[in-house]
Every structure is written in C-alpha cells, then in structure tokens.
C-alpha cells in the first residue's frame, strides 16, 4: 500500500513484546486515539534490535523510526534493554554524520501498563516527524523491480 499522500509519513516502530507492544495494546484497549502513521514490528526484546535495522529502515525510505522497550531494570530478560540503551544511544549520535536528522529516530521505554504514555509517545513522535517532513529519498533504483527480484530469489 502506498503512503497516504499528504496525510501520513512512513514511521516504523520496533517494540519489545513484553512491555511496549503490551503498552500499545493497552492503549488500544483504552481506545486512546493515535495518529495512523506508525507501523509496528514486534521483537522479543529491545536487546534484539540491531541498530543496523534502523539504519536499513531509514535508508530504505522511512521518515522516522521509534524504538520502545521495557523501562531500565524492568527487562523481561533482565539485561536486554541495558544493551539496547548503549547501542541505540550510539546510533542516535551517529545519524547526523550521515546527514540524517537525529530527531528522525527516538528510543524510549513504555511498560505494558502505560497505555496513556504510549499514546503520548506515538502522538509526540508522529508530530515530530511531520514537523521534519518527509526524509530525503534515495532515488534511482528500480525499487519495486528490485524488491520483486529479491522476493523471487528467496
């Protein structure tokens, strides 16, 4: 599906299964209205998130990436978000040298009970990305073609 022109931007979220995905569910159960731009990829733990996924996502045309895990000390796997915090902080600091605005990427902590906080995070992040506008796209490749080739190859 194409991005809804003029309405949405492409925002990808990487959420840990135990806290933030649950928090997003809690927000849903509470019917907390949110912008529709975000597409969520569920991972077991924020520690599973290789920062390179985020770079890949941004180079592949996303306008913003949001990562959310359990609050520090509350990781379901005890230590995952501690590793994530270091790695993601480095990424946030690295992006500017690539010419990517560091505000296009945020990482945060939302617990499974914090539906309201999730609503606030999504709303705020989406607003932030809309303020930045669409990210510069790397054109030139026959995008759809390539993708089809790749899909066919596998």
């Amino acid at each position, binding site marked *: 599906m194409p991005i809804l022109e003029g309405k949405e931007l492409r925002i990808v979220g990487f959420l840990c299964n*135990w806290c933030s995905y649950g928090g997003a*569910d809690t927000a849903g159960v509470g019917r907390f209205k949110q912008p*529709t731009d975000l597409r969520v990829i569920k991972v077991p*733990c924020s520690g599973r998130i290789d920062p390179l996924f985020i770079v*890949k996502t941004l180079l592949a045309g996303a306008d913003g990436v949001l990562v959310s895990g359990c609050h520090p000390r509350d990781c379901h796997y*005890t230590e995952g978000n501690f590793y994530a915090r270091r790695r993601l902080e480095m990424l946030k600091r690295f992006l500017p040298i690539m010419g990517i605005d560091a505000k296009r990427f945020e990482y945060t902590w939302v617990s499974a009970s914090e539906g309201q906080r999730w609503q606030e995070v999504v709303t705020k992040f989406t607003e932030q990305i809309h303020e930045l506008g669409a990210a510069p796209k790397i054109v030139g490749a026959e995008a759809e073609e390539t993708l089809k080739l790749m899909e066919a190859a596998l």
Partner: protein
Amino acid sequence: MKIGVFVCHCGTNIEGTVDTAAVAAASREFPGVVFATDTMYACSEPGQDGIIEAIKEHKLDGVVVASCTPRMHEPTFRRTLERAGLNRYLFEMANIREHVSWIGKDREANTNKSADLVRMAAAKLLKNRPLFSKQFPVNKSVMVVGGGVAGIQAALDCANGGLKVVLVEKDTTIGGKMAKLDKTFPTVDCSSCVLGPLMVDVAQHPNINLHAYSEIEEVNGYVGNFEIKVKKKASYVDWDACTGCGLCVEKCPSRKATDFFNEKLATTKAINIPFPQAIPKKAKIDPDFCMKIQKDKCGVCAKVCPSEAIDFTQKDEFITENVGAVVAATGFDLFDWTVYGQYGGGKYPDVITSLQYERMLSASGPSEGHIKRPSDGKEPKNVVFIQCVGSRDKSVGRPYCSGFCCMYTAKQTILTKDHIPDSQSHVFYMDIRSPGKLYDEFTRRAMEEYGANYIRGRVSMIYPKGDNLVVRGADTLMGAQVEIDADLVVLAVGAEASVGATDLAKKLRISYDAYGFFMEGHPKLKPVETNTAGVYLAGACQGPKDIPASVAQGSAAASKVLGLFSQDMLASDPQVSVVDIKRCIGCGKCIQTCPFGAIKEIDFRGMKKADVIETICQGCGICTSTCPQGAVQLQHFTDNQILAEVNAICRF
C-alpha cells in the same frame, strides 16, 4: 509458500473502522498470498473451521490472521494450524484491532494501515520455518511467596494436589492482613476462626515447607526449573529449638518495641510472638529494642529459655530452593494517609486507620476488644468513618478504587453498634461499591438495622475542639456543609502495592503497573498468569481484592500450577537462538552478552565455535544483534524475518 490471509471483522470492533474486504482484496496482491478473505469472527469455531477448510482446499502452507493482538489469540490460531496439519510457526498475526481500529476512526487510513500490517506479516511469514519443541523435565515443586490468605490457599491446594510446596513469608507468622481482622463481611464471622484452621493445616501439611521471616533474594532459571535463593532473616532465636512457650516474652523487661501486628496501637516486648495463634509460633527479637544487642546488658530471655534457643549472634542465612513454578501472593499494604494534612497528618491521636480499628475491635487486640480512644482511653459515642482515604484521589497519586473499603466500613459500623449500643456511627462516602453476593444487602443492614448515618460527601478537614474532633464535610445530597463533633475518627485507608513488590517483580521478571501491582497475563483470560512462564499471581498483589476474591485466586493459581505439572516433561519454546556453525568464527561475543549463560564454547574440528543450550535460551535475541556476521540467529525473529518486514513497508 502458499499463504492464506484471513481478515477478521471482530464484529464491529474492526469492521467499524476498517474495510476488511478491501484489506483482503489488497492482500491478494502480496507476494506469496494465494487466498484472502474477510471473516466475521476468526477466533470463533466457524471462523477457525473456515481457516482449516481454506488450508485444505487451497493447499495453504502459511496463514496470516489479521485481527486482535497476538498476545490474545496467537496460541488459539496456532492450535488451529496444528489441527489442519501445519506447523504452528507457519503463522503470523497482523494486529489490526488494538493497533488500528481501536485507536482511530479514519477508515481510509485504518484500511491502508491494516493492509500494510498484513503485507508485513506475509513478508515475514515467507521466511518462517517450521519449528519443533524439545522436551525437558519439570521439577514438580512450587514456591508460594507470601503467606496471607491467598498464599495459604494456593499452598494448601497445591500441597493437597500432591506437590511439594515451599511457602516463603516475610513476617514471622503467616496469616497476612486477614489475621489482623476482627470479623469479616458480609457474614460477620470471626476472622481468626476462618483463617486459623487453614494456618494450622499449613503448619502440619507434610508437603509444605514453610520459611517464615524470609525473603526472596535472587531468582534464576526458568519455568520447570527455577533456582531461588531465599534469605532467612536473623530472628536471634534458634527456631528449631524454640517451642513458642512464651516464657522469654513474659520475662523480657524491654516493653517499648513497636507492635507492628497491632498496627502500632500499643507497644510490645523486644522479644515477642505476634499473636497467640501465630504459625509458626516462634519468638523473634527486635534488635532495635533488645538491651543485650544494643548495650550488651540484660540477656534475661537467654537465661529463662528452657530450650536454650536464644542466639544473640545469629546472622541472616541464605538457602537455595529448586522449584518448577512460583506463585506470587505478596498482598498489599495500606496507603500512608499522613499525607493528608487536613486530617491532621498523624497529629491527632483519635484519628486512626481502619486496620487499627480492627485491632481495637479484636478480642486478641491490645484493648481486648474494647473500643477505646487512644488519647484518653474513653469509650467513644460518636464515631466518624471517612471512606476513600487514599483511594479515588488523583491528588495523592491514587486514582483507583480500593474495592473493599465500602464493605469493611459497613462492617465496622455494625461492630461499633454491637460493642457500644448507645453509639452513633457516621459514614462519609462518595459512592457505595458493593457488587458482591449479599454485599449490598449488608450495607443496607448497616443503615437500616444498625442506624449508621451515611453522608454523601468528602471530609475537608478535621480539627480538635476541646476533647473532641470536629469533622467538617459536605452532604452533597442535602447541598450543605456539615460538621460533626466526633469522639473518634476512623479512616478507611486504601490499599497500595506492598512494600518491596516491585523489587520482587524485577527478580521474577514480571511486569507491574504504575502503582506497583503485578500485571496479569490478560485482564480477562489470564487473571492469575503472568507473561513469564511458570510465574502465577494470587490475591491483592495483582490489585486490591477482598478475602473471597483472594481465596479464589489462590485456588486458581494452584490449579494453573497443577495443570502445568500434570506432565512429566515440558515442551521448550523453540523460539530460541541457533548457531550456524559454518558462519561462526568463535569470537565469543554472544557468550559474553547472553544474560542466561545459555551459550557455551565448543570445539568443532579443532575450531572454537558457539553453541546454544536450547532449554536455557529464553529467546531474547541479544546474541543475534551482537554477532557481526549474523551467525547466531534467533528463530522466528531472524535478521531475515525482521528485514523482510522492513522491506515490506519501506519501499524506498
């Protein structure tokens, strides 16, 4: 792979704001998708049958269901696939309810987003592989943390079911809050007569091993095989020798120790047994008040003890217990009401808590069942009860209803009338919440038969006037400000998470809410489970609960444990990391970062390689994001699966 997509209406829950037929139509264009349809209720029997039929008819070998959160029905649909003869991991869910239809009403955007989520799910599914569980043995014993009524019930049910039970209690006796109560609603029967026999059963049960005055220090392991370090706190009494005769208590000259059991209404001896029916009935020294420990004087208890049990040098002791499951039943604590300056902030002795009032009412309490004002010992005639103190009050960070205060307040007005027939009770309330069996009738009885004066409104301030307290409140029904000259004010103090609950949650790796109450697996369908396999909840640690609800949860948690242990072997979750031995260069970075010690170094034809111990791996994937060459891959969340999701939506 031939993928079938099923887009659920969930009645109007999804269909109301998502055009599910359009989503299905769009899905047919996605790579790998050969069949797509919308369906009324995918999780219902006809819905599931429809999926099975489609699998057979279209020879599907992968299924995407777009419906609610996978945290709800993923297990349901995985079973559906198995019934159709497919591996349960050839399945993906697109969460178009919690993440789409429930959070916005823009049908166009929702439909578009839903299609995107299906596309991502299908893209990932193309990379899914069948996964198979391993079997591992279970240690069929259970640890119950907390010896209140919920923990006691859970422990007894498990023990009666034939399991070995380790019951850990942080105080010197089990019984919890219920042991402090005088009577219980709505039957007004004696609390200790109900609870006492259960406590004795715990003490005598051959399957129950009780560690009182102990706390959880450290939790290792996983479902089926937990290894838990327990701290046995120093009581300065050798409990193996102590017979609970009470001679030491009788002779101890230090009388100023804090009496926690009586809610500080009185003081107690430096060596004491909290109450006569305590289980275990063992003495403990409060070192802050013991003259021997403080000043190396006295030592009377040691001299009089017939079994030479006193040990002033005793230290905390650590033991390790191996169990297959854990039930957390750590209960609640009372809100610290002294933040209410307008109620005196603790300055007025005749403003007491409801639990202090219970101790006052109790025949085993410090006043032996006589209601006496703490200030002068006089019998009060006008007693004012204030409800919702630390409940439903955002300004003190406690917006929730504690649930049981309305009922115990009604009970206390009845007991007040019983104890002092010429007394008058006044109850300030906002709403009466009494939705239990015979509950509302009970509050009516308090008013109709016992003459309790219910006043609808909050109390703004309490101030002393002469010997009495002026309680100034509102009667909103009358539309007036009202004042009552009270002899005694009882605050119906709300419940909050027990001290240390969040620390325990972290050790058990379970979630808790903003107030420190433990999170259940699902608010409706998994009320006593947690999201950590093998850890269950019982009682008020999950949220304020009255006795019947706590007991029911104790039994429910026990039944879950018994169910878990009904098999000799447990199936491991195959969503674990696997090392591609060809790609591994043996650098050991994964070993270094694994939080569980689940990866070990092996020698493979003279080369160092990493190897995952499947039954220890918990599936966090830290190793996968650590390995530079991607040699270790978390199954079901491989780099390729996540990249497929990224590629599905970020199309340059």
